[in-house]
């Protein structure tokens, strides 16, 4: 179990250390800068923060001395010629600008570096980054340089190779509301899974398209959305258009994947070949953002439920974590130590993590809670953090 926590918050990076007298927060890092994701590379201990500058563009920040000093990198960029089909938010406000015939194209620029993942043990300098507007970037030199994964960017589900010319297929990738803050409505990659058995086996999740899998290190990609159901398009079981909020994979049993989706909780026991909806709305388990799976037992997972997409808050003013130990057949509400009155927190997709028996989550209300016993009981780590975007054990 890890004795370090790394929080990405609206006002900077917060690192907490477990000491003899409890968890202690260090002075805030990247003060005043929104940090949408912060994590630690388990291979060499490098700390990473994704800076979501409102004014100066997205940047990665890297510390190789445990957080004492940081170096900002501007090396993650779309190559010249990278284009995407412009998406329009389906609201009356945007309809005036929406195209009626041929698609509109835009040159790609990074709006947000939403997620970072690390290569396998035999790829010591390999990093992955997921972005809005929906590009997967790969670094083989520890983040010094980045390359856009073109097979995914040029995927037929997204219109084909727009480097070569206009679209040759229909675009099925929708925008994510998380992009609206940047004045656009474009897709985003927020989840990247590297199979611990085979680092060439990858899954990514795209809001709003669905899950894609590569078995050849990113050379080819295929949709993996069988069994997924949505409630906002005419065909709920369509191949594309799904809105995974986050996906995760059991390290000890990598064929077990979990997905908190806009339209419920989904579980796969066969490596995402088939998904099964395991929501239990009557138990409060349906809508939410984050999901965590046990490191050894692929049938045990945790979610932090929220009321509904249209009502993004706790159910009945009480904050709880739901746990299943049987692959989603049943869920247990875990409330001990969590506020049960006047609590309306929402927990975002990267703000729940597990390390051994320890779990931690943080809310956009600035509250952070930790459990040492797999969620049975919870301890408050603080109520006055800035809005929390990510929580990772380091």
């Amino acid at each position, binding site marked *: 179990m890890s004795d370090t926590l790394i929080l990405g918050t609206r006002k900077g990076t917060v690192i907490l250390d477990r000491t003899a007298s409890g968890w202690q927060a260090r002075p805030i890092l990247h003060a005043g800068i929104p940090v949408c994701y912060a994590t630690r590379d388990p291979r060499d201990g490098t700390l990473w923060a994704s800076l979501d*500058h409102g*004014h100066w563009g997205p940047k990665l920040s890297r510390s190789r001395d445990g957080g004492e000093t940081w170096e*900002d990198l501007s090396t993650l960029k779309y190559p010249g010629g990278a284009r995407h089909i412009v998406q329009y938010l389906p609201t009356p406000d945007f309809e005036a600008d929406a195209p009626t015939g041929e698609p509109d194209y835009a040159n790609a620029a990074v709006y947000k570096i939403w997620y970072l993942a690390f290569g396998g043990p035999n790829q010591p300098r390999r990093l992955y980054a997921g972005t809005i507007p929906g590009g997967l970037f790969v670094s083989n030199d520890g983040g010094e340089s980045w390359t856009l994964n073109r097979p995914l960017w040029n995927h037929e589900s997204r219109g084909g190779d727009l480097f070569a010319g206009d679209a040759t297929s229909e675009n099925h990738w929708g925008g994510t509301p998380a992009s609206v803050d940047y004045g656009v409505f474009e897709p985003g990659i927020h989840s990247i899974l590297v199979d611990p058995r085979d680092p060439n086996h990858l899954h990514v999740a795209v809001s709003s398209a669905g899950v894609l899998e590569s078995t050849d290190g990113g050379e080819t990609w295929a949709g993996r959305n069988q069994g997924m159901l949505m409630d906002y398009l005419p065909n709920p079981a369509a191949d594309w258009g799904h809105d995974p909020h986050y996906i995760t994979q059991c390290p000890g049993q990598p064929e077990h994947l979990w997905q908190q989706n806009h339209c419920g909780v989904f579980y796969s026991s066969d490596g995402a070949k088939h998904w099964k909806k395991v929501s239990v709305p009557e138990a409060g388990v349906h809508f939410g953002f984050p999901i965590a799976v046990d490191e050894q037992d692929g049938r045990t997972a945790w979610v932090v439920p929220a009321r509904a997409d249209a009502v993004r808050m706790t159910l009945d003013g009480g904050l709880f974590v739901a746990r299943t130990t049987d692959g989603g057949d049943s869920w247990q509400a875990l409330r001990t130590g969590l506020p049960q009155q006047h609590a309306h927190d929402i927990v975002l997709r990267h703000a729940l993590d597990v390390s051994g028996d320890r779990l931690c989550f943080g809310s956009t209300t600035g509250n952070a809670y930790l459990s040492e016993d797999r969620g049975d009981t919870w301890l408050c780590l603080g109520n006055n953090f800035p809005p929390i975007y990510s929580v990772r054990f380091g």
Partner: protein
Amino acid sequence: MPTVKMTSHLYRFFPQLKDQDIRLPSGSVAEVLDGINELAPGFTDYVLDECGAMRRHVKLCINDTIVIDRKALSDRVKEGDTLFIFQALSGG
């Protein structure tokens, strides 16, 4: 030569520019920004995106005139002009 003045918030990332009297050859806005980038490598990554367009919350003025061409940055900065680099503060 044109003068460049900028928001002090950029000094956090480029301390070498603090309190400097920045004077660069006249040219397009893009060329003047490239000149600042020579003094402080990486500077343009903060003001422009990878397509070379001005970032959304950045505003440039030549003397009292707001730079209109935010994509190609073709406006001319002439001898004796001052190029101002502002950020549009927002958020809470």
